[in-house]
């Protein structure tokens, strides 16, 4: 049985957690994602940058009052990639028929 290749960009614990979190949200701030995933700020920044470069998420840096605010949103490409990833994942989990 041939298994489809899993998107290497999503097949990473932290990047997958970020995309899974954003899939059900309209947008989320950086500190919230950090809190939910339990990642360090440095590692999370690197992974968010990778997802952003691939066009899976958009990152808007601005200000909320006087404090800096980084907002992340999933893009249609990111949504499609996540759906394909879940579809591919299913084929790994289905037990082969005897």
């Amino acid at each position, binding site marked *: 049985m041939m298994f489809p290749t*899993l998107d290497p960009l999503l*097949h*990473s*614990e*932290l*990047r*997958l*957690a970020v995309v*899974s*979190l954003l*899939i*059900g*949200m*309209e*947008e*989320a*701030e950086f*500190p*919230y994602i950090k809190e*939910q*995933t*339990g*990642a360090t700020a440095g*590692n999370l920044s690197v*992974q968010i940058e990778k997802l952003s470069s691939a066009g899976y998420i958009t990152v808007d840096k601005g200000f909320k009052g006087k404090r800096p605010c980084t907002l992340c949103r999933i893009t249609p490409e990111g949504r499609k990639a996540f759906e394909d*990833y*879940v579809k591919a*994942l299913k084929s*790994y*989990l289905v037990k082969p028929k005897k």
Partner: protein
Amino acid sequence: MENQEKLTAERSLEIITEQLDQSRRKVSKTTGQSLFVSGLSTMIMAVVIGIVNFSTKTTFGHLLWFILPLIIWVAMKKIHSGKGYTPDSLVGSLVGKTWWTYSIFVVVFFVIVLVWNILFVSRLLPVGDHAFAIVDPTATIMLLMGMAVAITGHLLRSNKLVWLGIVAGIAAFVWEQFGIGSMIMASCTQSVDFIVRINMALPCLTIFLFVLFGVMLPGLILKKRNL
């Protein structure tokens, strides 16, 4: 959570499920809290209006309903202040839109009914026909609220909420539309003055009971629910 490149399919699925569940739990809790606070405010308001209507033998107390959204808004602001940032989830935003649509329907319908009952019916119809032409808004508003609760239940995948909304909405509609409360009261007492007074306050009792079982109780269930 650190970045590990060697990830099994099972672990991937676990991460996805964990994040989605976490998000749903948050929405359930926030919605439950909103329903609980709105329900409690509405019940207190129903008691106040019921007392006003009972003691004045009029229905002018119902005008107090217009300040209820303000009370709920202030209460929600107080509860959420200092709780930190929580992003809008897609499900949460759908729940919000459901209740926003319900509010628009209720406010517009209530204003139309008030204008109809106060301005048109009393001026256009002969005295004896007033009772047949007056529109009672309570039954329809309760039915719409039951629908909003049931839709919220569907969005949050809570069958208890769906059924409480449906049953409470329909029961309140039947109770109010067919004057079951008035009939029971009339059979219990002979005092005309008491019957008149209780008729002015009865819609508030219906609202109180409906909100207790159709809004506050589901809110409490959602708040306590552990997905």
